[in-house]
């Protein structure tokens, strides 16, 4: 089956998108296209019977009155300018203005790790902020914690409609990049202080972003940044990939954790 055989669906609303997605088994979801278009160019497009293009489905609103709700098709540029931290800082860290104006929350959230390294620049920020993902499967909407969403992403296709979160009281974000605008961040650490304590999450140390629970516990016990960051690697075995070695990640992760905690002002 060639690329031109995939039936193109362009729903005009979120409800239409949910209907068109169905159980998602034969659907490639196309959001901003910054990941899928290169896959087409390289003949690696995840070809399925139907391609669901969400560009005209709406789903691109941010509301930040009280709790925060961000639509799946909200661009990273809009998130970067939203003032909702640590999401805004994580979005600002991605690529350049042209890419940020096209790439979307939903695409970023669902991006599988690439052959070369991890993707999903917003995952750590969403995890730290205890975001919940509103999604649809087989015509039914549901909302699930981001940890569960990420863990189940490979097993069951879901159409992301947006994320919702309590606006953190304070937040911080620290990342290690390579020099060029378009390198994925090697690692990133996000912290968010919520009503019941500080959550800390890291991207780039596992296939998808993970919470750093030892660090969270240390902070809850009143540890300072230096002391809390010592447990950053507990239970983690960072990978080697094209961006950095496992050794490098082990050396740098505690530094990023310390910086993020210091930036949060709680260390």
């Amino acid at each position, binding site marked *: 089956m060639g690329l031109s055989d995939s039936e193109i669906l362009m729903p005009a609303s979120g409800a239409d998108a949910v209907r068109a997605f169905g159980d998602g088994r034969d659907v490639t979801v196309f959001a901003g296209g910054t990941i899928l278009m290169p896959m087409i*160019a390289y003949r690696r497009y995840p070809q399925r019977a139907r391609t669901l293009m969400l560009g005209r489905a709406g789903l691109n609103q941010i509301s930040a009155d009280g709790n925060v709700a961000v639509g799946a098709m909200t661009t990273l540029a809009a998130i970067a300018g939203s003032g909702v931290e640590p999401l805004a800082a994580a979005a600002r860290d991605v*690529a350049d203005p042209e890419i940020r104006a096209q790439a979307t929350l939903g695409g970023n959230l669902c991006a599988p790790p690439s052959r070369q390294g991890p993707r999903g620049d917003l995952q750590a920020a969403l995890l730290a902020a205890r975001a919940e993902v509103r999604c649809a499967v087989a015509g039914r909407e549901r909302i699930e914690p981001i940890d569960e969403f990420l863990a189940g992403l490979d097993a069951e296709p879901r159409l992301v409609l947006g994320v919702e979160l309590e606006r953190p009281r304070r937040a911080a974000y620290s990342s290690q990049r390579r020099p060029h605008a378009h390198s994925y961040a090697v690692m990133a650490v996000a912290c968010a202080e919520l009503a019941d304590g500080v959550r800390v999450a890291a991207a780039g140390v596992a296939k998808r972003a993970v919470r750093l629970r030892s660090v969270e516990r240390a902070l809850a016990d009143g540890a300072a940044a230096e002391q809390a960051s010592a447990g950053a690697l507990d239970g983690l075995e960072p990978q080697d990939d094209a961006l950095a070695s496992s050794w490098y990640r082990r050396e740098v992760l505690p530094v990023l954790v310390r910086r993020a905690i210091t930036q949060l002002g709680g260390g």
Partner: protein
Amino acid sequence: MQLNVNGVSRAVSSPPLTSLLEVLREELAVLSPKHGCEQGGCGACTVLVDGEPRRSCLLPLAAVGDARITTVEGLGAPGDLAPVQSAFHDRYAAQCGYCTSGMLLAAHALIERKGGPVDRDEVLDALSGHVCRCTGYVKIVEAVMAASRGQVGAEPIEQPLAPEPSQPEIEIAGSPA
């Protein structure tokens, strides 16, 4: 479907997931957008979509719809260059030229959006995804700043002063000089 390119409506028949870059170059023979990396990383294919810079390699035809596409061919014409084009010409901001069309369009959009002088950091941010493998960034950044200040065409070009020789040049016997 019809595609609005540089103010002219053109009929195109490429499949919907074809990149705008490929449609422009292969179907419409609009050749200023360049095939660079084809993964959004180099900026050589940048065009304006409703006035905003976008990577044409990352935009599928189906997502373009009736948006206005502007390429360098629509920015100015010989003898009637856009300010940013004049500034690039005046200040030697193009070398091999491969990145130039993307640089021009991203810079043009920045200047239009700002509507007045842009500072260096703004240029660096707007062009951060545009790669010049001749590494001629100094003159490119200067040209964008000059264009935003209207310093084009008749304006005298300030040449950087050559350093004063600290000692007489040494003549080497037999050298062609």
